[in-house]
């Protein structure tokens, strides 16, 4: 099932299905190693509408709420 990254519990492993949004956001995410098809670990889901923290290819990346809702993922 494809859901937004903000709807996932901390500690789940997910596969990036699709990135909604334009060229800008796709490029910025791909720079940090986040592409469709990649597997990442959701380390901390946001609290108080705060950012989420993911581990991608062994690197930690914080994603603001707005960005995280645009990343659609499947739970592995």
């Amino acid at each position, binding site marked *: 099932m494809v859901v937004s990254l903000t709807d996932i519990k901390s500690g789940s492993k997910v596969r990036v299905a699709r990135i909604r949004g334009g060229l800008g956001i796709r*490029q910025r995410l791909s720079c*940090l190693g986040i592409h469709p098809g990649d597997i990442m670990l959701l380390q901390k889901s946001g609290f108080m509408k705060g950012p989420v*923290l993911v581990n991608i290819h062994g690197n930690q990346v914080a994603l603001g709420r707005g960005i995280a809702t645009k990343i659609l993922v499947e739970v592995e």
Partner: protein
Amino acid sequence: MMKITLVGQPNCGKSTIFNHVAGYKAITSNFPGKTVTYSISKMTFQGMTSEIVDLPGSYSMTSFDLAELEARKYLLREKIDVVINVIDASLLGRGLELTLQLLELNLPTVICLNMIDEAETKGIIIDTDKLSHLLGLPVVTTIAHKGWGLNKLFETAFKVGQKSAKSEFLTFSKDVEQVIKDLSEYIKKTDYSEKFNVPYRFLATKLLENDQDFIDEIKNTDMEFIKAVQGYQHQLEQCRDRSSDEVISSERHHLSMQLYESVVKLSKPRKEIRNYLDSVLMHPVFGYISLAVIMYLFFNFVFYVGAIFEEPLLDFFYQFLPFAEETLGADSLLYHIVSGVVQGLAGGIAIVLPFLFPFLLGLAFLEDTGYLPRVAYLMDTFLHRIGLHGKAIIPLILGYGCTVPAVMATRILESERDRFITSVLTTMIPCAARITIIFGLVAFYLGPRAAIFVFLFNIVVVAIAGNILSNIMPEITPGMILEIPAYHVPSIKILLSKVWLRMKEFIVIAWPLLIVGSVVLSLLQHWHLEEFINQLISPITLLLGLPVTVGVTLIFGVLRKELSMVMLVQALGVTNISTAMSATQIMTFTIFVLFYVPCVATLAVLIKEIGSKRTLFAIVFTFLIALILATITRFVY
């Protein structure tokens, strides 16, 4: 002279390498959070002199970030003898994506696998010979913060530079490669490759990626060319059923991953304490408690160290004044000039420096350990409410040191609107100079509790001002995408050289203004012109219920903020300010000085960063806030 350029992704340790070899001779127009404008220095290595340039960290060669665009422009424009591509070895897969783009530039290149110890701890063992063979480039491993491997790195760089061996690109999948080739052939018929000074293939891939910078340059004059490019983009889209920029970026991603998998052997990562640090420092509750404790300790350290040096240094400078008065005569022109210079020097050396040095040292420490991005992560929730995102906290914290680097640090923000709002807000954060006013006036005469109140009140005002500005410019911020690097133990040498670079900048910009400012004030007093200025300012001083004589200090506060306080003593003609001003007046004066018009040095960078119109707005905006709040203080406090 050989020109060596360091290129790499943010946090790869590029600046550490630079700071190691550049030493005190380095010149830079940047000192905030990150390397934004480039740093440059001469270095002598094995009897050869060369010029070394540290470019801003770039994730990619596609332009969408101001600093990255500058880095790319530099690479294309300058004649570079050798590029050192620094890669964080523990993030090799991602780092190679930039390397693949650099290869397309056909420049002599050396790969530097930095933080190789870090990679091994993570269980990543890299076959460097194989990597070197696959990329067709020399590969050197280093641990920059220990200085390990740097000799070999520069030795190799010199060799490559002398041979000027050009790098060669690696190819993508056949169908994609064909489209790139066709577009390259088409570009060959035009003069764009010469115009931008880039190889055909580089330009072709960038155009297929919809690179805004190149496309905008061509769009105005040559729609036909753009249409042709769109045709090729369409071909790619047909091949893979996704947008052409995605096709290129995923091709690059796959190629990097392929390279990565063929040179890396994974073993079990070592367990370390620092891996557990984040479960406390980024925790929803303990994270904020730790943040408060760390900030408390940080500012305590700054003021503790500052206070030790401030008094003896001030005494040292002021002992010259009675002596000068005696020998030159109290009314002579020369005495006024001398006392102006002494007070200017005292302001810079005894008041600002003792606080600025520990502040910059503490900041460099927080930065190099990797704690600052965690602060941004924690603060994102709150900054979101005032229409900014977490990264804006870095310029705001820097603001407590000096507003000049803080405004420059706003460049780490992606959107122009965020940069503007954050710049205006940083000017309202009390810098070291204004903090000394809060301490020297409020804490000294009204007590420490009143001083703490001023600091908290300031934060509330900044938050409200942020809200107002975001409502005036209701654009949605792009949102935070921020790398949280692993914790590091910083090296003292690197910390000190960072602090030195930033201090140097401060000294160059601020000290001359400071000395000139206090000499001018002394001269005004000599010719009794300050009364005229006081008359001019009297509408403000009367509104705020302040003595008319303080008017002139407000003008000088614009030159350098601490002049407001230093000259208050002079203007009032008393040594104990509480004999000439009531508690309410002291508080009103401080609140006004805290917010009104940024200092000259800040105005200069503001004009550079946000333009003169918006700077004018900042002046009016902060002035109005100061006037309103100070008037309220007059009647309420």
